[in-house]
């Protein structure tokens, strides 16, 4: 199962893993039972209709990955039982084993034999090539996605070769250890080559542990156990039912009444968790990072934020800890562009964090911000007037309202403008804003996924349009670095540099309090809510 990676890499990652430790829980993890039992149907809450059906490759939201993951399999997947994801917790799924070759330029997968799609067709390396050629938008790709949000993840892949039905080789331009982690994300299922990609918007043909039984639009998604699943004895459950409950209060009531046995990932705030625990003491609440951060986007192509001093003033002005208390009742984690321990493995330590803009003592930070504003030519008598945009969703508006108040204290008068979801990304991508309050979710806790998606010069998600060749070179350098210690050092430098340039200041990292009934076993929340939805090991202790 385990790959034949270079021993040094494994050793160093293991050290990292030890340093990181497990994700802390405010409650407790569900107790593992030595004798899992088969049978039963697990009912789970789903906060909204899945936006694009089961077409995971065409969306970037947990509202799709969570209910669609049980249908699919990846080549590799993060160990469902380990809460902290890392290169060391990657397990084979459709790939039985894998091997880095040619000094990390080729990644070879040896596939399981005898795997069948839900419609009975055999799974082969052609399906893998089909999927990744489609994702890379290779010239000879057999399939095409109408929306392809993660094309940049595979920019380093030159070719995907399928020399025989059970072998696939990824040829890379340069070494990229992160590729394996990207392949382990819930965002990276293998599609069937014989099924048109558009069909996944309405139905699902996968190789996963559960087969789609019914999708009643706006009501529920129901799965039954896949009797031909390639892991013997799995899944334990006879089926899954995701009940779509739009109203948050009703979702909480449904969990409390036991009509759903597990919450939707990212749905339970600290306050809600405390209330739930009070009402139903036996509920199991587990603290888990979402890998979603709250950040400030500033358009570096438009005044006044084309001036680094004004951007830095904003970064200094916002008291992260006060925001955490006011908006999240202390339930979020403070950190910069990569989450810090214990929620992530790449962020700076507390001591380093305190030296970065905005993370010192609030009064001193405000004074620095005012000084920077003065240096930029702005005075309290002549305040800068800007419009701050945010999505018309409560979590965004709460954060934006706090920012407005903080900016006012340093002479920036911001008026809040709420943008409907239908316009938000179009507006941000076109740069039709000055400053905004934003949320960013990242598929894996990895610098490549974050920096190429959100900070690379030509990325459509680089909403700030900040482009710095020096930082771009550093991002490429860390991406190709095989030695984890050296890579971590470069990533820490990048984070420092980004903060000093006032690029998209991170305000906090959201932390979920995943709630489930105690009879649900082996449903372990990870430090990233996009990746633990397969549920093949989950069982219900009736």
């Amino acid at each position, binding site marked *: 199962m385990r790959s034949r990676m270079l021993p040094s890499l494994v050793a160093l990652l293991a050290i990292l893993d030890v340093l990181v430790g497990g994700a802390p829980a405010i409650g407790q993890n569900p107790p593992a039972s030595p004798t899992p039992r088969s049978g039963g149907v697990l009912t789970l809450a789903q906060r909204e209709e899945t936006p694009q059906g089961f077409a995971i490759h065409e969306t970037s939201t947990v509202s799709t990955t969570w209910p669609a993951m049980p249908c699919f399999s990846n080549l590799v997947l993060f160990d469902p039982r380990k809460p902290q994801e890392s290169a060391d917790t990657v397990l084979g799924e459709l790939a039985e084993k894998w091997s880095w070759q040619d000094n990390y330029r080729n990644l070879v997968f040896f596939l399981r034999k005898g795997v069948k799609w839900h419609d009975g067709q055999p799974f082969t390396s052609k399906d893998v090539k089909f999927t990744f050629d489609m994702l890379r938008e290779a010239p000879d790709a057999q399939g095409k996605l109408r929306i392809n949000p993660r094309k940049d993840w595979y920019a380093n892949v030159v070719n995907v070769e399928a020399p025989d039905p059970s072998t696939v080789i990824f040829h890379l331009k340069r070494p990229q250890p992160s590729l394996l982690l990207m392949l382990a994300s819930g965002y990276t299922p293998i599609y069937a080559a014989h099924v048109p990609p558009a069909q996944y918007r309405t139905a699902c043909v996968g190789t996963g542990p559960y087969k789609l039984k019914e999708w009643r639009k706006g009501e529920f998604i129901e799965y039954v156990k896949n009797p031909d699943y390639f892991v013997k004895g799995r899944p334990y459950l006879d089926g899954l039912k995701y009940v779509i409950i739009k109203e948050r209060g009703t979702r909480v009531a449904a969990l409390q009444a036991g009509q759903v046995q597990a919450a939707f990932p990212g749905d339970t705030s600290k306050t809600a968790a405390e209330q739930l625990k009070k009402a139903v003491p036996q509920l199991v609440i587990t603290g888990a990072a979402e890998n979603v951060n709250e950040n400030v986007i500033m358009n570096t192509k438009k005044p006044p934020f084309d001036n680094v001093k004004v951007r830095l003033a904003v970064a200094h002005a916002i008291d992260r800890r006060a925001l955490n208390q006011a908006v999240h009742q202390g339930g979020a984690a403070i950190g910069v562009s990569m989450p810090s321990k214990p929620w992530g493995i790449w962020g700076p330590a507390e001591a380093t964090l305190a030296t970065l803009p905005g993370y010192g003592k609030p009064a001193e930070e405000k004074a620095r911000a005012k000084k920077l504003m003065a240096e930029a030519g702005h005075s309290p008598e002549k305040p800068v007037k800007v419009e701050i945009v945010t999505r018309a969703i409560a979590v965004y508006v709460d954060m934006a309202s706090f920012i407005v108040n903080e900016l006012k204290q340093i002479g920036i008068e911001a008026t809040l403008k709420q943008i409907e*979801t239908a316009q938000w990304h179009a507006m941000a991508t076109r740069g039709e804003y000055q400053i905004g309050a934003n949320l960013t979710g990242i598929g894996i806790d990895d610098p490549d996924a974050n920096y190429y998606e959100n900070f690379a010069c030509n990325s459509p998600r680089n909403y700030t349009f900040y482009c710095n060749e020096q930082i771009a070179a550093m991002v490429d350098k860390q991406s190709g670095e095989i030695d984890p210690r050296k890579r971590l050092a470069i990533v820490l430098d990048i984070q420092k540099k980004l903060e000093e340039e006032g690029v998209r200041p991170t305000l906090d990292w959201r932390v979920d309090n995943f709630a489930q009934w105690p009879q649900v076993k082996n449903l372990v929340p990870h430090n990233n809510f996009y990746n633990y939805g397969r549920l093949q090991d989950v069982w219900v202790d009736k």
Partner: protein
Amino acid sequence: MKSYIAQRLVIAVLTLFGMSVVIFVLLRMAPGDIVDVLFSAAGYVNPSEKQAILRELGMDKPYWRQYVEWITQIFHGDLGKSYRYDLPAWQIIRPLLPVTIELAMLSTIVAVALGVPTGIVSAVRQDGLLDYAMRVFSLAGLSMPSFWLGMVIILALVSWLAWIPPLTYVRPTENFWLHAVQFMLPALAVGYRSSALIMRITRSAMLEVLREDYIRTAWAKGQGEWAVVWRHALKNAILPVVTVVGIEFAFLIGGLVVTETVFNLPGVARFLVEAILWRDYPIVQNLVMFIAIVVILSNLAVDLLYGLLDPRVRYA
């Protein structure tokens, strides 16, 4: 009467035509479209990919052509295809209709069953203790939004009984009892609010009629309270109540959004809001037209009931 109905039907067709134009134009005036929403779920926008999807959905055509195509499709019994689900709109809309119609009807029955008797009692016992109690009861109903009441019902049930009604639609053929429970609670929440309005209208209409000469004559003839109130007064006071009931029913078809959301019922109103947020034009257009048809038909039914209840209307 026949010519009256024919005249009303002609007006109804013209109204529907006007509605179709208004909803078509308003939807396209709203900023953003389905493709923007699709890209929102992906976190970015690519202009060339956007154009390709617009072409695929036929949204690159001139507006007038899109309108003509929609109307032509309706005349051919085809409601078009949902942009969001890539399925025929009728396939999406069909399961929603019985849910909303049943909820609206049950709510109306609850409203009438609560509102009319309390209105009558309140009028007959004007300024008595019972009247004050009924007026407080109705004022409370008007002041409490039905969604709030719905949420209070849910919270009370979960707190006291650790139970809430089923969250996925239970068909009456599957389990009639569970189906009834699933619908009665939202019907009570919505019906109570509507009953308050009906009670107040009934009361004021009854008070007016009870002061009429023919009522005094009925009392003078020695008729009992039951006969005076039910046979003479109520029959003449009921017309404004029927109007209000008709309006309330029509309103409920499209106005149950929050109640359907709170009780997680897959009805028209909740789905309509979703479709508007998704800019799923075929679904929105057809659902709005459906609501317009219900409004027109319920108005027509009220007008016809006038004729049945009041001979003066029939012979006019």
